[in-house]
């Protein structure tokens, strides 16, 4: 049976599609740019609901540093619009040409830049959304500070479209830093890159991102600095004095290096990609222990300052059925959590990708019931 494709171009149209589905007991798998569809449990339920037609910048006020955009707008368009006025949304975005702002917000994606710039959640001012029963509502506003009513916009950040479909979102934007530098060092595996990263972070409060990359027995440490060039040059000199000369990345290529990094870890090309989150102080220990327990060499991108590691494994070398038992997260320090972000379809069918334990599930179910009482959105794919 082929499923119908639903592609509304207006909020009214979307609302009536959802209302009908709610009345008729049908469901949807919601998509924006389609770049994160591989994340989550394999589900055969629901027709695709494509939001990318609800697109475009609604209101951009450079002097107020605010922008209002429709949820289906591609990140590249937003980046270009803001860039004309020297402004940006200071977050990492994989595949910006395809990724939509609504999708990015729904996934709660946060890359290495989170260390210095925070997440999209920090920038949300308000939004409009369609609940699972078709009700269209808004919350928040378009001013940079607002405590009028409950924080539904931030609740929807990272809710994976399970509560509501975003239709427009208002954000605070920031000036693009006047300069940036990326430094990269090869660190022998015998040296503790995590300790070095910690020292850098303690000594340079304005570091925007620190990354440890491991692949094929090699380890590198990458540092991103953003700010005004005078202060950056001093900090670069200080870092080189401490850590030695670096494999230089020209300043003009700095942001391209990070884009490439974000893209490389936004799919796994048939491998299994595990994301691990722990308290930053335990990050090194946890990453090592995870590798040991799975007994497979990983390609890893680790953000030690925020305690997040993305690790790619050969899918054939690990068994889905015993995966969570093998990892035994509860015996790791720092309240370690993990999810399987990407995996081959068949591999995923043998596992709950969201991990063995989501705390507060009962309350989450109550929230879900209020927003999407009949389970119209994303059945089978999520933790709820």
């Amino acid at each position: 049976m082929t499923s119908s494709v639903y592609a509304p171009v207006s909020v009214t149209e979307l609302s009536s599609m959802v209302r009908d589905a709610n009345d008729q007991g049908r469901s949807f798998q919601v998509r924006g740019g389609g770049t994160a569809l591989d994340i989550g449990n394999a589900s055969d339920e629901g027709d695709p609901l494509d939001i990318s037609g609800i697109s475009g910048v609604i209101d951009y006020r450079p002097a107020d540093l605010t922008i209002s955009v429709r949820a289906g707008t591609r990140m590249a368009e937003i980046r270009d619009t803001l860039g004309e006025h020297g402004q940006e949304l200071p977050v990492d975005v994989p595949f910006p040409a395809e990724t939509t702002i609504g999708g990015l917000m729904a996934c709660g994606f946060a890359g290495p830049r989170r260390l210095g710039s925070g997440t999209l959640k920090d920038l949300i001012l308000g939004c409009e959304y369609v609940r699972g029963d078709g009700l269209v509502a808004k919350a928040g506003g378009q001013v940079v500070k607002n405590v009028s009513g409950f924080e539904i916009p931030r609740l929807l950040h990272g809710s994976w479209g399970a509560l509501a479909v975003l239709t427009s979102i208002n954000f605070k934007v920031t000036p693009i830093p006047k300069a940036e530098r990326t430094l990269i060092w090869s660190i022998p595996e015998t040296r503790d890159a995590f300790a070095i990263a910690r020292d850098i972070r303690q000594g340079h409060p304005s570091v925007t991102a620190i990354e440890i990359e491991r692949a094929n027995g090699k380890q590198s440490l990458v540092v991103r600095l953003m700010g005004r060039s005078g202060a950056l040059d001093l900090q670069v000199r200080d870092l080189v004095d401490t850590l030695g000369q670096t494999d230089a990345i020209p300043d003009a290529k700095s942001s391209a290096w990070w884009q490439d990094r974000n893209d490389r870890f936004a799919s796994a090309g048939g491998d299994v990609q595990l994301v691990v989150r722990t308290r930053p102080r335990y990050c090194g220990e946890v990453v090592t222990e995870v590798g040991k327990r799975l007994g497979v060499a990983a390609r890893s991108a680790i953000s030690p300052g925020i305690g997040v590691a993305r690790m790619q494994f050969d899918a054939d070398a690990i068994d889905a059925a015993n995966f969570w038992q093998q990892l035994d997260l509860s015996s790791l320090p720092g309240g370690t959590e993990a999810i399987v972000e990407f995996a081959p379809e068949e591999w995923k069918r043998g596992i709950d990708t969201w991990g063995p334990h989501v705390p507060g599930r009962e309350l989450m179910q109550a929230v879900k019931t209020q927003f999407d009482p009949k389970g119209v959105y994303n059945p089978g794919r999520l933790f709820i």
Partner: protein
Amino acid sequence: MEHAHLLRELEAIVGPAYVRHRPIDLMVYEYDGSVEGAVELASPAAVVLPKSTDEVVRIVKLAWDEGIPVVARGAGTGLSGGAVAQAGGIIIALTRMDRVIDIDPIDRTALVEPGVINLELSEAVAHLGLFFAPDPSSQKACTIGGNVAENSGGPHCLKYGVTTNHILGLEVVMPDGNVIWTGTAQDGFSGFDLTAAMVGSEGMFGIVTKVLVRLTPKQPLTRVMLAAFDSMEAASNAVTGIIAAGNLPSALEMVDNLTIQAVEPVYHAGYPMDAAGVLLIEVDGHPLDVEETSVDVESICKQFGATTFRQADSLVERDLLWKGRKMALAAMGRLAPNYYLHDTVVPRTRLAETLNAVEQISAEYKLPIANVFHAGDGNLHPLMLFDRRVSGDTEKVLEASKVLIQTCVDLGGALSGEHGIGTEKRGYMTLVYSDDDLRAMAGLKQAFDPANRFNPEKVLPKGFVCSDLKALHFQTMADQHDIVPV
């Protein structure tokens, strides 16, 4: 349950010393920091001061079994009536739960109980080069739990963000006495972001008993600059100019002439007495960044007609410049016995327009209005000065308030930037939200608190939450003064 029996049960949980029930002891809990007349007052049946999560749980379970409403309270410095008692309900005052449980200088986090005072947390971590960034003006008294409930701001949230940006997780006692830990959603971790929903929920979703906060590293250099202007319009335009040029000061505050008249003779902060408006601009960061930004700020201020420009690097000088701003509310007593402090927000570029409108309202109602506020955020704090002993003055203030709020909403603004809705602005919610918007908010309340036991009569306008608390009679100020828009 009979009142005496209820008191005995509560005393069995926390000990007799920590249950307040005499009318004289309860009086203070009928108030918060709001202006009298702007929020409805109500007397609780009892006030309980627990020392632990376990005691909170037992109190909440007792209230749950008996169908008694519960209001959580910190220091009572709130400005919208959020912590004011529910008639006949129990107030759980969390001020005795004031332990800093753990400080982690490497991860830059602290685990604290809700009764920890905001400034005391920053003082406790100062030796590590860290601070807790949200800094409401009441920071010497207000509690972290209250900050979480109200999503408090402060002068430095321009750069550092409001409370929600600094909360990583919460321990919450739910209305039925269950205890949960909420996390922050990111990359699919932790499910829904229940922490985000909790912050700013004004005590209506759950009672926070532990808070995991993010600590912020202090920057190597902080500099405060003062720029004086001949008109508020020029000062407002300078604010827009500074931000639009790509600068991000750590604070950008405005003080008008009426406020200068109140503070300068007492605190000698060095604000020119003849200035129509003074900007305080604080920048922090790497010394070179601070230097470059200061040059930018100075040239922009002069371009917009600054008559005086000074800067201070030393702590003593900086504190003096800040003193005029921070003590402004206290100094208002020199001008009038009462004030009504507003908290509307407008887009930053509409500041000049808004201030003109405020001036017109002041003239029309013959009501002095002082302005001392977070200009960088567009967060206004008009202070209406009056004497409530004068018959008709309070009514005049409430009428002028209605016009002021409507004006800001018409300019694309919000009802509250950092003080919350509480009972004070409940009646105004329909100015900015549709019935469907409010229905969805009520749905979220329903998910957390299906029986409507926690702070039942706040934030949402009447009729949006079904209450099973039949014995209660409550009327908002808005209803009494007929200011609910029809």
